[in-house]
């Protein structure tokens, strides 16, 4: 029992202890019957936690309690618990009875108590913990984000060994990036091993210090450096609560670098600016200097501090305004360079500076002006020195700068050219060329500056010695327009540093020197001539041969155009018979018909020379009268002068030698003397020949002649084989005699074209058969494949009565021939151009002439189009038998731009071009087509109009032709002639156009044009003028402007025209009236000017007259209409004001009196009452009249006249009665006179009109009176109302009948009475008139028919 008791006690104690535990536990405890799932017990904590009562738990199944509903929803779950015996939920959400969410930790386990399985559930409220945890997580996450994404580098270190070293704990992304490490690689490593430079850097000490003290520290920017990385870092180091050290830092490398760069750049620029020799200056926008570089003192001579903050006033007075305006422009944003001006230094010296500036924009705003100022005093001085030097040079000299502008022009060249330096300075060099050459030819100085090689290529006349160029040349306008030869020397102009800054050219006139040289050359030519002639004399075997040879020498060596020798015929006709000739003769001699008799045909040079025995010269065939009989022929052969030399043998006249030159005045005295001697030599030669004859060693002479002949001399045997040929064949043809001897001409196929061979064969046949064969020309080819023309002369060699062969001479006459052709072409073109055809007609003829004469297959002319943008084909020509269709097609379709193709190139350059082989020429555009039709060579010639090129001529040849210089020159000349022709034609056309234009203006213009002389008499008048004034032109030409001017304008016009004539006014313009022939006055707008001659003398007055009568009329009408309207509207306004006043005044009187009268006693105040009623009555009347008038006014337009028979007397009297009181009140008389007349009309209207007149009369009369009188005159009644009143002002008289007119605006009344009266009386067929004299009175008269018309 005790034991049981004890046990019981123990149990109870234990139970109590447990129960206390159960009841005081801070966790919720739930006991379940494991078998049934019913709740056995629940502790108070859980009850208070979940808010359910003890009862609500007990006996229930767990899932029946709301809080657990969701957790243990079915028995399956519970049985799982039963089975397992243990379940744990870390974080289970429970709902309390009041709906709050609780997070709990739920743990349950099963055990047995007294045979019962019990499930104990421990439920711990973890809500607070959960919230704290959540918050922590969020904070962590946030910090982690901050950590990772911070722009700053963050490194976390943990101290090791009591702060002896630090281990890397964390590294954010920024730090990874900056230090170029990966976090995973370095975490856990020592900072000293990852960043070995950390101690030297100094941060390590900071780490230690912060770890020790816990105070954060800032470690300012410094360079960290180890073998791996270098960079600027600034650090903020702090200690976390956890004891970890955090370094927050940033990489300043880039910033520092930029700073450093900036510093370097700044100091670089500063050094640059400060060490600059030139002054660098900054100016603010107020014009004040804000910076001056140290060279200020050196450049300007001014201390910088004197100028800083000021607007410097240091400019030379002569330059100040120029500089200031330039600098003002700078402040507006204009840049400027090289402004040169003078400044005055503080010590009063003058310095030259060159100033360049540019505005500086910052943020799109002009902030300041930066200037560079250079001291150029020295340069100026040296320039001046240079100028002095150049000025003092004895030769005409000028210089150009690198841009080719003339910078010096000395006195001598001023004298030479006649152009002052101020005219030339600054002009391009082309101007110099233009002056001297007539076109913008580059001057030598420009060529010196041109790219190397250009001079050598284009101007072979120049010689280069080092950097000096010299040249000689012909200048067409050297000395004030006269031509001359010059020697030119050009050298570069150097600056102080040796750079080329221009070129200086000296020109020396060597015309006379050149002339001497020419004379020398001429002498040489003559000497050669004489010597050759002498040889001929020596070698000749007979007279004719000698003469022929002499003629040949004269032409070939002497350069004369033709020479002939003639013999005197002693017969009665005294003929001169040509015996020998050479040169361009072409039938001239046949037509010569010269005699040496003293007749017309004997007075030419030949006849004269033979007759007189002295040389006779025709210096200018064109003008020499003696040459008349032969002039035409001579000129057409191109002879310009001639000389005839007599040949006399032993005193006996036997002939004359005649020489013709293509130049006029070709024979000067020296030449004549030499030629005369030559003639005497010839005479000797002839006599010697005659004397020698058989004795002469003919063989020897012959051989000499043969070997030395300039022509090829060939001996042919009778079969035509070449027996002998002289060495000239080598010179002329390029073959050795041995190559040819033994051959026939027909075998020389590479020498002679087949047709030449045919010709020669035929001629040879004739010659051998003894026929006379004239010299003839064949084509041949040299070994260089050059085509030449060979003149063949020959004669049969007779031996022993038979023909042994022939002697043939072959002369190369290519040059002469082509010269002839060229000359011929030139002459023909000149004559075509002067024929006066139109441009279009001329082209084909010109082209044909050139092509046929000068052997071109195709010719074309290109001319500028209107806009001068391109060249178009004007015309082309080819032989009709030829077919160049493909080429023709291309040519007609193409246009050339400047510089494009051959045509464009010639157009651009103005220089002729010879294309030897088209296929090889890249610039040529039509190559394919040209090749197709077989063109090989071409030449293109500018059609030059002065310096301009108006077009291009191009010629094509099927043969390949090497450049023929003379031909090109001839064509160039022709091109120039054509250019002149085009220019003349275009000038003609524009003249014609302009003439037509002016004539049209004159003839067809609507403006009258009158021309009058200094005496003002008209000289010419155009149709419009005749129409305006109604005169014919011849009638007008007998008049002057005075007669057609309206007299009102006459005096003024005469005065003005005289002033115009005296030049006091430039023109005279007026709108004035004229009087036509029919007397009608018209308005004209005239503009007169004067035409003067070059001396300023007055030639004509030119008057242009426009008829503006209609315009004037319209203007006047318009103006008067406008005035009327304005006046009317003003009147109406006044009327309204007056009317209101008129209505209102009587009304106020009536009302006031009515008010008074109401209160009056009719007995005691009867007098006052009467007075009141009087006033009221009168004003009521006045009101009534006013209203009546307004009514009338409104009705006025539609009032009807109602005619009836009535008597005047009655009407007049009733009017007078009406107005008698008024008259009395003003102390005026009012009477009437008139018979009683029966009238038919509207009595009311008449009464009203008369009333109105009487009323007016009384109104405007203060003294005297008014009289009404009526009479009968004819069929009219005249009613007059006269007063002695103020009268009407004269200027107002026309307005009296106007509506609303009142002379005095303050006068009573509406101003409408008279207007109404007048209108109505007019309707009745009558009228109202008046006379008035200011101050004396007026009389108005109504005039009406006695019987009004219906």
């Amino acid at each position, binding site marked *: 029992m005790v034991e049981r008791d004890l046990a019981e006690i123990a149990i109870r104690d234990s139970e109590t202890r447990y129960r206390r535990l159960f009841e005081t536990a801070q966790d919720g405890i739930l006991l379940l019957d494991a078998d049934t799932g019913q709740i056995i017990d629940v502790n108070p904590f859980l009850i208070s936690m979940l808010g359910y009562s003890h009862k609500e738990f007990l006996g229930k199944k767990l899932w029946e309690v709301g809080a657990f509903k969701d957790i243990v929803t079915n028995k399956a779950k519970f049985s799982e618990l039963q089975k397992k015996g243990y379940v744990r939920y870390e974080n289970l959400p429970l709902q309390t009875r009041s709906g709050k969410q609780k997070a709990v930790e739920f743990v349950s386990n099963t055990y047995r108590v007294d045979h019962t399985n019990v499930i104990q559930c421990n439920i711990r409220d973890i809500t607070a913990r959960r919230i704290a945890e959540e918050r922590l997580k969020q904070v962590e996450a946030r910090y982690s984000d901050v950590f990772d994404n911070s722009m700053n580098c963050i490194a976390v270190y943990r101290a090791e060994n009591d702060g002896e070293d630090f281990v890397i704990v964390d590294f954010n992304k920024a730090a990874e990036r900056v230090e170029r490490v990966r976090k995973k690689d370095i975490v856990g490593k020592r900072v000293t091993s990852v960043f070995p430079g950390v101690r030297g850097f100094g941060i390590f000490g900071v780490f230690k210090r912060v770890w020790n003290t816990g105070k954060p520290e800032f470690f300012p920017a410094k360079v960290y450096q180890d073998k791996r990385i270098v960079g600027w870092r600034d650090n903020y180091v702090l200690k976390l609560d956890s004891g970890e050290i955090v370094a927050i830092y940033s990489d300043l490398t880039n910033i520092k670098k930029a700073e450093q760069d900036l510093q370097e750049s700044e100091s670089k620029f500063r050094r640059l600016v400060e060490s600059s020799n030139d002054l660098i200056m900054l100016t603010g926008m107020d014009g004040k200097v804000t910076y001056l570089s140290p060279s200020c003192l050196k450049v300007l001579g001014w201390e910088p501090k004197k100028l800083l903050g000021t607007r410097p006033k240091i400019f030379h007075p002569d330059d100040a305004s120029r500089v200031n305006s330039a600098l003002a422009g700078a402040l507006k944003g204009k840049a400027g360079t090289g402004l040169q001006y003078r400044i005055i230094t503080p010590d009063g010296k003058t310095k030259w500076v060159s100033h360049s500036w540019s505005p500086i924009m910052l943020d799109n705003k002009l902030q300041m002006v930066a200037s560079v100022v250079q001291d150029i005093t020295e340069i100026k001085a040296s320039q001046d020195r240079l100028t002095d030097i150049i000025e003092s040079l004895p030769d005409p000299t000028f210089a150009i700068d690198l841009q080719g502008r003339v910078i010096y022009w000395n006195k001598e060249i001023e004298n030479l050219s006649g152009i002052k330096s101020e005219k030339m300075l600054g002009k391009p060099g082309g101007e110099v060329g233009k002056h001297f050459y007539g076109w913008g030819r580059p001057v030598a100085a420009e060529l010196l500056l041109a790219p190397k090689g250009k001079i050598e290529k284009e101007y072979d006349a120049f010689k280069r010695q080092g950097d000096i160029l010299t040249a000689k040349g012909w200048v067409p306008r050297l000395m004030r327009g006269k031509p001359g030869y010059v020697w030119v020397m050009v050298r570069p102009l150097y600056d102080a540093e040796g750079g080329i800054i221009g070129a200086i050219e000296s020109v020396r006139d060597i015309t006379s020197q050149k002339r001497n040289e020419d004379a020398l050359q001429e002498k040489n030519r003559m000497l050669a001539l004489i010597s050759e002639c002498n040889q001929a004399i020596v070698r000749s075997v007979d007279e004719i041969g000698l003469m022929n040879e002499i003629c040949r020498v004269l032409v070939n060596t002497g350069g004369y155009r033709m020479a002939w020798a003639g013999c005197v015929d002693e017969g009665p006709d005294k003929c001169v018979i040509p015996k020998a000739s050479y040169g361009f003769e072409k039938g001239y001699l046949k037509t010569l018909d010269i005699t040496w008799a003293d007749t017309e045909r004997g007075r030419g040079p030949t006849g004269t020379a033979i007759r007189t025995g002295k040389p006779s010269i025709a210096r200018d065939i064109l003008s020499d009268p003696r040459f008349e009989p032969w002039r035409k022929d001579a000129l057409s052969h191109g002879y310009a002068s001639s000389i005839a030399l007599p040949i006399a043998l032993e005193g006996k006249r036997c002939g004359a030698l005649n020489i013709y030159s293509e130049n006029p005045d070709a024979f000067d005295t020296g030449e004549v003397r030499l030629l005369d001697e030559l003639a005497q030599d010839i005479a000797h030669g002839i006599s010697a020949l005659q004397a020698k004859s058989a004795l002469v060693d003919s063989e020897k002479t012959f051989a000499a002649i043969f070997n030395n002949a300039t022509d090829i001399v060939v001996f042919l045997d009778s079969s035509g084989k070449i027996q002998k040929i002289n060495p000239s064949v080598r010179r002329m043809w390029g073959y050795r005699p041995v190559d040819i001897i033994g051959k026939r001409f027909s075998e020389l196929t590479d020498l002679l074209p087949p047709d030449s061979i045919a010709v020669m064969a035929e001629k040879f046949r004739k010659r051998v058969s003894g026929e006379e064969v004239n010299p003839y020309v064949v084509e041949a080819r040299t070994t260089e494949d050059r085509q030449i023309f060979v003149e063949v002369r020959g004669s049969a060699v007779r031996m022993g009565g038979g023909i042994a062969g022939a002697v043939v001479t072959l002369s190369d006459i290519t040059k002469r021939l082509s010269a002839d052709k060229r000359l011929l072409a030139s002459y023909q073109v000149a004559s075509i151009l002067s024929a006066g055809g139109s441009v279009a007609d001329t082209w084909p003829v010109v082209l044909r002439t050139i092509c046929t004469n000068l052997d071109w297959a195709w010719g074309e002319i290109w001319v500028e189009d209107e806009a001068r943008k391109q060249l178009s084909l004007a015309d082309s020509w080819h032989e009709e038998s030829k077919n160049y269709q493909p080429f023709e097609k291309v040519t007609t379709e193409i246009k050339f731009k400047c510089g494009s193709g051959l045509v464009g190139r010639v157009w651009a350059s103005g220089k002729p071009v010879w294309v030897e082989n088209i296929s090889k020429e890249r610039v040529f555009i039509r190559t394919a087509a040209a090749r197709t039709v077989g063109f090989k060579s071409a030449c293109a010639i500018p059609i030059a109009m002065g310096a301009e090129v108006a077009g291009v001529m191009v010629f094509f040849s099927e043969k390949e032709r090497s450049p023929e210089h003379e031909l090109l020159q001839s064509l160039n000349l022709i091109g120039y002639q054509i250019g002149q022709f085009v220019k003349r034609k275009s000038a003609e056309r524009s003249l014609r156009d302009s003439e037509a234009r002016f004539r049209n203006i004159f003839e067809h213009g609507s403006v009258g044009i009158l021309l009058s002389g200094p005496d003002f008499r008209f000289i010419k008048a155009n149709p419009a003028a005749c129409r305006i004034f109604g005169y014919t032109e011849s009638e007008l030409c007998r008049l002057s402007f005075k007669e057609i001017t309206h007299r009102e304008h006459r005096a003024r016009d005469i005065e003005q025209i005289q002033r115009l004539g005296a030049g006091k006014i430039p023109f005279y313009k007026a709108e004035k009236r004229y009087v036509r022939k029919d007397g009608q006055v018209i308005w004209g707008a005239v503009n007169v000017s004067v035409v003067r001659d070059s001396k300023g003398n007055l030639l004509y007055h030119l008057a242009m007259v426009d008829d503006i009568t209609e315009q004037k009329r319209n203007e006047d009408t318009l103006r008067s209409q406008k005035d009327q309207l304005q006046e009317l509207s003003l009147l109406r306004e006044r009327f309204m004001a007056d009317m209101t006043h008129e209505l*209102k005044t009587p009304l106020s*009187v009536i009302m006031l009196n009515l008010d*008074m009268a109401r209160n009056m006693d009719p007995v005691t105040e009867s007098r006052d009452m009467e007075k009141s009623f009087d006033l009221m009555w009168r004003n009521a009347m006045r009101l009534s009249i006013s209203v009546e008038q307004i009514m009338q006014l409104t009705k006025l337009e539609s009032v009807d006249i109602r005619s009836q028979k009535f008597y005047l007397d009655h009407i007049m009297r009733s009017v007078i009665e009406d107005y008698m009181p008024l008259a009395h009140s003003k102390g005026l008389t009012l009477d009437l006179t008139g018979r009683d007349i029966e009238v038919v009309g509207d009595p009311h209207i008449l009464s009203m009109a008369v009333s109105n007149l009487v009323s007016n009369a009384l109104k405007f009369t203060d003294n005297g009176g008014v009289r009404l009188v009526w009479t009968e005159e004819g069929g009219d009644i005249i009613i007059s109302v006269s007063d002695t009143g103020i009268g009407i002002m004269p200027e107002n008289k026309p307005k009296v009948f106007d509506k609303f007119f009142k002379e005095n605006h303050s006068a009573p009344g509406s101003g409408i009475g008279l207007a109404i009266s007048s209108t109505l009386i007019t309707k009745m067929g009558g009228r109202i008139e008046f006379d008035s004299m200011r101050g004396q009175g007026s009389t108005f008269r109504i005039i009406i028919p006695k019987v009004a018309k219906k």
Partner: protein
Amino acid sequence: MKKILIIEDEPDVARSIKMYLEKAGYTAAYTLDPMEGLEKLKDFDLLLLDLIMPKISGRAVLREMKSRGIKTPIIVLSAISLPATVGEELAREFPGLIFVPKTSLHAQLLPAIKKTLGE
């Protein structure tokens, strides 16, 4: 007995007002000539002034009074045709001026006089 002067160019109006005022117990006189009125004014206690008169306008009279320093109280007799702006201008130029329209003299004139004279 207060004395009132009327300056008014329309004789009928002037005469009627004079009678009207006398009936009301005032001594009244009128003149058609404003200059004459100005001379007489010193003997009167009140001025009735027409604005629109042919020779000298009411405004000119007012200005003249101002320049001469005449302090006599004034009632302006205004016309209907007077443009509103003119009235406003006058009121600005001469503050305290009393206007009585001519068309309602019978209704407004006596009260205005009484008020002005402080009766």
